[in-house]
């Protein structure tokens, strides 16, 4: 991956995802064509079942499209074998999940360092980045705690640190505030906003949360797997 790759946009072209559920065919994503520019702070909104999470999973290479294309950093994801896709996710994409999904056997610091370890980042550099991000997120002093000993908000902050510490071009966040109280949600959104502005990391959220929609600078609404509206707001 070259530095230029890091700056490339995310594009989907005529993207379809059809699931077979029992004998029924579910069209989760229908003919979505979309471009997300580097540095965007974009929210995918819509009711449950509108296809937000599936679209996010398609962009993140976590699932493969039935038809159409997804291009991230100029790589057509559906053509990549699993191990190359894993490498691309490692180097280009950070994930923040609704249920945090920290690894329970690792401490907060080890969770945050996990993608960097896989990338081969030196111990000093890992410590420097995590210390800095933990300081920014108010997680100082909690580095050695396991996820089970952290609150939901703290776990989500560790998940955000994990997602951005490896310096991805794109962070995909699926309902990141869904399990948080409003104070924790605001703090987390402030953090992601800051990281977006300071580091130029592209953020794409799937959300029902009005606060996330309000803070986004581009709001894409989805209904029944299709893009219903796509509004760029000046912020």
């Amino acid at each position, binding site marked *: 991956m070259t530095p230029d790759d890091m700056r490339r946009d995310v594009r989907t072209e005529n993207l379809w995802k059809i699931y077979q559920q029992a004998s029924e065919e579910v069209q989760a994503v229908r003919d979505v064509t979309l471009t997300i520019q580097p540095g965007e702070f974009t929210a995918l909104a819509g009711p449950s079942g509108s296809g937000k999470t*599936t679209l996010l*999973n398609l962009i*993140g290479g*976590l*699932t493969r499209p039935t038809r159409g294309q997804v291009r991230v950093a100029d790589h057509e994801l559906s053509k990549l074998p*699993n*191990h190359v896709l*894993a*490498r691309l*996710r*490692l*180097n280009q994409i950070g*994930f923040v*999940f609704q*249920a945090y*999904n920290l*690894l*329970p*056997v*690792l401490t907060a610091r*080890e969770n945050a360092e*996990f*993608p960097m*370890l*896989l*990338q*081969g980042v*030196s111990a000093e550099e890992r410590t420097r980045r995590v210390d800095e991000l933990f300081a920014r997120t108010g997680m100082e002093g909690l580095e050695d705690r396991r996820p089970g000993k952290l609150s939901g908000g703290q776990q989500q902050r560790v998940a955000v640190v*994990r997602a951005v510490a490896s310096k991805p071009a794109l962070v995909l966040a699926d309902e990141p505030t869904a399990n948080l109280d409003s104070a924790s949600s605001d703090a987390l959104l402030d953090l992601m906003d800051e990281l977006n502005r300071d580091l130029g990391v592209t953020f794409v959220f799937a959300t029902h949360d009005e606060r996330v929609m309000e803070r986004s600078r581009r709001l894409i609404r989805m209904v029944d797997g299709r893009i219903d509206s796509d509004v760029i707001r000046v912020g």
Partner: protein
Amino acid sequence: MMIARRKAFQIRVIAVLALRNLRRQVRRTLLTATAIILGAGMLVFSNAIGDGTHEQWIDDGVRTGSGHATIEHPAFRMSRKLEDRLAADVRAVAEAALATPDLADRVTGVSAQLTISGMASSAAGARPAHILAVDPQAEVDFTNLDDQVIEGRYLQSDDRLAAFVGVGLVETLDLRLGSRLVLTAQDTNKEIVGQLVRVVGVFRNGAPPVDNTVVHIPLAIAGEWLGSGDDVSKIAVMVEDSTEVSSLVRRLRQALADPVDAGRVTVLGWREAMPALASLVAVDQFGSYVIFAILFVIIGFGIVNTVLMSVLHRHREFGVLQALGLTPRQTGAVVLLEGLLLTTVSTLVGVGLGTWLTWYFLGDGFDMAVIAGDSLANNMEMGSVVIDPIIIPMFSVARTLQTIGWIMLIGILASIYPALRATRIDIAESMKFDQ
């Protein structure tokens, strides 16, 4: 440099995840580890006891019968007749071969014996007798009957008209120490001839066919009595343990190539000389292998259960690992390593336990009476061979390494399926699982 570091870090990540996941489900890990430890320990100990038992059977058998190897006339095994005996010159060649340094270093006992089928009679009556004419001095190192004396003593070098008689025969013929006994048999001219001897000792072997028929007399007197001179029916040879038999037989056949080729002598190992005992050992070994196979299957299922359950419970986690950049193969490696770590550590502990148990019983032996009960243990008899209930375990490094190898192989095989499952998960689907 960067690639090497990345690889090293990735290996470290895989190892840390595997180790911590084993610690995470301590109870499940300990349960499986205990099963493997006990299984491995039992395998090592029961292998040692099994090998020790077989060695004991073989030892008891060869001491009662033909030795680990026997040198005899080719027709003697079938005919059991006096005429099918080793001539004195062939005996001399065989004994000279056994005295060469190459063979003498391996051999622990040699007994030249004349086997005679005849009758033993006293004033009380007559009974069939299996008369064994022996060199008393050589026979003491060979037979275990001298340890089973209940009255009197075993034969001595300077004995002439002496007989060492089984307790059954003594009772039937109403004999006591010093009693006169007439032995009758065909001589080399096929004439029926008698020999008067006196009872110098009585033994109780435990095997009725032995106690009721066997009479030991000095070889010298038998030669005079039957006109066989220094001829013998066979020369029985003992070595340290049964593993040396095939090489002993091969060397003896080489040393006696000329009389062997001339059809005047044959060399047999104990398996050929005592096929019933060989079959018994083989059947018992097969039984042990069946039990070992069952143990291996139990261990295998234990590992599969632990590792597979752990994989099924961590479906979502494997999805997260792969979302974060672990490749499917690396995810499988985490699972495989968990199984291997569990198997390796448990196997080594189990083998240590089994070795300690073996070592513990090495001195005084393992008393089978504990399992079989006193009455049964005191009468353990197979064929005409009485088996000592005290079994000395036989530790073998090769056997132990084999056991480790088998359990490790099972550990690897049992971990492959769960590892494959971990590699094949659908990341997006796995994320839908509730935490």
